[in-house]
């Protein structure tokens, strides 16, 4: 006990420094890692809009076409797939920000699978953010997904992010 009493300052310093060292090491690695990709969602429920970066965003409409349907057959969708189309309204304040679009499959708040947008089947005039627009506009983004995507208790949501706002992003339900 006398040894502890005579060395209590050094022991107290160890108690403080060891967790601080571990914390700093992990934070330097992990905070930088999470900051570079969309990892902090702002959830936007169906039929609602949200302000993000320098614009207001909302989903106007969403459709899903199965490869088994006549429309899917006409589009030439691969067997066992669906084409999910999401129409987004953008109200920019000044020039519209450029955005990255992905489709997330979620169970509660956990992302299970993510699809990139495809231009293969699009006929829309605009398929993504237009950085030279400074007025209200809309675009339609499409995703080719397996027919079981979003089935049962799973949900689908549009993942919209801009470089300036990372790691924050919008999770737009439709």
């Amino acid at each position: 006990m006398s040894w502890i009493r005579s060395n209590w300052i050094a022991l107290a310093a160890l108690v403080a420094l060891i967790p601080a060292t571990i914390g700093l090491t992990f934070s330097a690695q992990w905070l930088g890692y999470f900051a570079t990709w969309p990892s902090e969602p702002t959830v936007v429920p169906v039929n609602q809009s949200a302000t993000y970066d320098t614009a207001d965003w909302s989903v106007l409409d969403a459709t899903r076409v199965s490869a088994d349907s006549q429309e899917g057959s006409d589009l030439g969708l691969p067997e066992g797939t669906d084409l999910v189309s999401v129409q987004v309204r953008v109200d920019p304040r000044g020039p519209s920000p450029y955005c990255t679009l992905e489709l997330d499959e979620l169970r509660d708040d956990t992302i299970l699978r993510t699809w990139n947008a495809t231009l293969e089947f699009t006929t829309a005039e605009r398929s993504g953010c237009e950085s030279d627009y400074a007025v209200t506009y809309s675009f339609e983004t499409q995703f080719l997904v397996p027919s079981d995507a979003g089935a049962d208790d799973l949900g689908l949501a549009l993942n919209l992010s801009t470089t300036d706002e990372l790691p924050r992003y919008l999770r737009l339900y439709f």
Partner: protein
Amino acid sequence: MTRRLLNGLVLVALLVVAGFVIHTTPTDAQRDAPIVVSGAIGSPLSGRNIAVTVHEVHLADVVSTASWQGETEGVWVVVDASAAAVETENGALLNAALVIGDRTFSASGRPGLDTIADQSLAVGIPITGPIMFEVPVDAANGRAELRFAQNGDPRADSVLAVAVDLSGLELEEMLTASEISRGGS
């Protein structure tokens, strides 16, 4: 006396702990080793972000596709397989290899876009088609292993491995490889 005994015990305990840490710490090779998932022809294999099913394996002197015909002084090992991503669409089938003994053969780039090697992988939507390996005649027999990974560098990531017995395969003079298709199961 008691204090010296206590110090000695603490020292021994520290040495034991240090020895345990030294002998159980993974080496660099162990830390970076790929995570291998093994299976057989016809069985679906799945890793972190790649799923592959090998349907058939053929040996041929000449292989043709819709836009290419390949002759070789060796032998073509033609693998018919399906591949898909599992979680995200940020990769391709960049690593398809045939391991025979201590030799590793990468998928041939000669067929260009008529092979699924190097093709982007979609989540849950398999791409099906051929992968060609050009190997010396003396290598095209015996046991081999097909290995698939999403990245060119598979360290600390999934590698899917399928055992193949090349000696049981008939050498075909001319093989028309299957066309690439998407979707299905």
